[in-house]
């Protein structure tokens, strides 16, 4: 079990967080989980696809960063080479934890900012300070707070988003066949994308419901994002020197 602690300005007074990106900080992941309201920011850089979580069987949206486990094609010697870093990456090593509190005799579960103290980003000498000298939040922590809030809200809505897509038959499975310059072929399966035929056939109430929730925009963003697959292939060719 990772050492997850609730963040506080006593225990974590001198804590600093390294915000560089490299494999040694755990950034060598081949996809980043995301959610509908992040699609607009992602779509210019990464292919957005859907896959099932192998532990829960539930659908989740992900931004593809590579073609195989451990491969993040955006990592370079100079850091993360893209104009936007997915929030699920940028939030590291912070996460939302849950704390049970008693309010008027009723137990409520409140989200609290927590930190993974096992993360290689944890330091006391380098990186961004989390708290100011007298215990106030640093600007960095304020950024993290708002970012975590977005991630949290996004994931809360994920199930409703996925259910809506499935209910309107808007997801379909697809197999990604990638051919590199040296002729080698790689097949990736287990992915799902927007079913464009179903989308074009949507009318009336379905269209209104989708639009009211802001999901119509997300659907088109996900579709548009698939053009980034060729960018990923180019990066892979470049990396292999072919």
């Amino acid at each position: 079990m990772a050492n997850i602690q609730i963040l506080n300005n006593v225990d974590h007074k001198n804590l600093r967080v390294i915000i560089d990106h490299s494999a040694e900080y755990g950034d060598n992941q081949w996809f980043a989980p995301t959610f509908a309201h992040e699609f607009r920011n992602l779509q210019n850089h990464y292919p957005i696809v859907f896959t099932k979580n192998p532990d829960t069987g539930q659908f989740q949206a992900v931004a593809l960063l590579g073609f195989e486990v451990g491969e993040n094609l955006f990592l370079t010697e100079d850091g993360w080479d893209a104009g936007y870093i997915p929030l699920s990456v940028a939030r590291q090593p912070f996460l939302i934890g849950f704390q049970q509190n008693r309010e008027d005799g009723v137990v409520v579960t409140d989200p609290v900012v927590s930190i993974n103290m096992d993360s290689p980003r944890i330091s006391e000498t380098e990186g961004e300070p989390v708290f100011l000298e007298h215990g106030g939040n640093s600007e960095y922590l304020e950024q993290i707070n708002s970012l975590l809030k977005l991630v949290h809200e996004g994931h809360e809505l994920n199930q409703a988003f996925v259910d809506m897509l499935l209910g309107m038959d808007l997801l379909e499975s697809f197999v990604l066949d990638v051919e590199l310059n040296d002729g080698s072929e790689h097949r990736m399966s287990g992915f799902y994308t927007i079913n464009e035929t179903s989308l074009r056939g949507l009318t009336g109430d379905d269209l209104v419901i989708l639009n009211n929730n802001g999901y119509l925009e997300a659907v088109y963003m996900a579709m548009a994002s698939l053009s980034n697959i060729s960018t990923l292939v180019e990066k892979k060719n470049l990396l292999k020197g072919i």
Partner: protein
Amino acid sequence: MIDHIRRIVIVGGGSAGWLTAGILAAEHSAASDTGIQITLVESPDVNPIGVGEGTWPSMRHTLQKMGVSETDFVRECDAAFKQASRFDQWVTGTKDDSYYHPFTPPHGFGEVNLASQWRALAPDQPFAEVVSYQPHLCANGLAPKQITAPEWAAVANYAYHLDAGKFGLFLQKHCVEKLAVKHILDHVRGVKSTENGDIESLLTDGHGAIAGDLFIDCTGFSSVLLGQHFGVPFISCKDTLFCDTALAMQVPYPQADSPIASSTISTAQKAGWIWDIGLPTRRGVGHVYSSAHMTDEEAEIALRDYLQDFDGSARKISINPGHRKSFWHRNCVAVGISAGFIEPLEASALALIELSAAMIRDELPVNREGMDVVAGRYNERFRYRWERTIDFLKLHYVLSQRTDSDFWLDNRKPETIPEHLSQLLELWRYRPPSRRDFHELEEIFPAASYWYVLYGMGFNQDEVSQKRSDDPVLARQFFEENTGMAEKFIRGLPGNRQLIDHLVRHGIYKI
């Protein structure tokens, strides 16, 4: 045209009746004005038998085609995944005597002579485990797919164990609500015939005469239309397959999370065998035996011994093994037990219903003129299928080396073995079963099934000459690939119980 086939009337509401109704209604647009109207009449006070039952993998396709959701099906029918049959104590009767007949055909089947090369390269390992990864999955209690797999999809070919009573009700709901099958609860008191001897209508207590163009008899052992009304003779196969009685029990699991076996376990006894079927909420266990070789008391003692003195009550079911001489007579066709029944050794009952209904669906004549032609073809096809089913079940008994009772000795007497099977066994002394031994397009038991039973039971084969297909290099490659697949799947697949619990709690997606 006045005599178009527009109305189909099914009598009997068990698994046979509702499966047939669903298979026909899904294709023949019972819900549309221009489709065929399907009515199912069942008696309001018939008790479903309610024992656990096994299906074949074909059931997945059958249900999917009917428009059923697999999540709903598993939840409502108390269904679990089945990947094989395991036969214990069939060969010698010793405790370690066990082999699998899995649903996945041997890896490399038809590419190389796996039988000769198994004997040459891995004679100490069970045949099924060398050529199929599936026995390894069963032995480890694993599910046939991951929780991310869509409905009906499989990593390893699978079928189901289900509660037959709940299955009938589930199909009923689907047929009535989704497929516009008309459901009438009433007693059928008589049959009104046309001048030429066809059935014109069924006479009921509360619904008058129910007229139809084709009548399907799903009335079980009583065979009301085909047997009683038309008097089509019954051909007993008791001289070949002796089992004629069953004692069935429902057995709870020790704990709510006890593992669910993903194979049907069949354990041979002195005068028959015991089935053991794992459903999510309980096991269905029963002893099938020959009343000529064992008394009911002895059978019950053996069953309770098997269950380690479990004290639940057992229900006795009499079986008259055999089938009707023909199945489609005039404008009436029998499906299910009314057509025939034999011991459930290879779970053929539901599979035969699916095949029957599918042939009626696909060859449904447009009018009465074409019906006799279709009936002739249907009878020929199903006569063949019954004979092959009997052959295949008999094979299990013929190959046994047990000598501990007259039951086993009598089973190997030449006069009890069908000629067709004897001839094949003579050929197989020198070569494995081939696809040409089983030439039908939808062969009920394909050659691969015979391989699993023959080599699982230690059939002595003496292949005299070496052929190109006896290629040890290629065979070894297939064996190694099989081992690799087994290891990979064992790492990646959840437990059978785990997948079923997940499915019941969260459902699985259609895609």
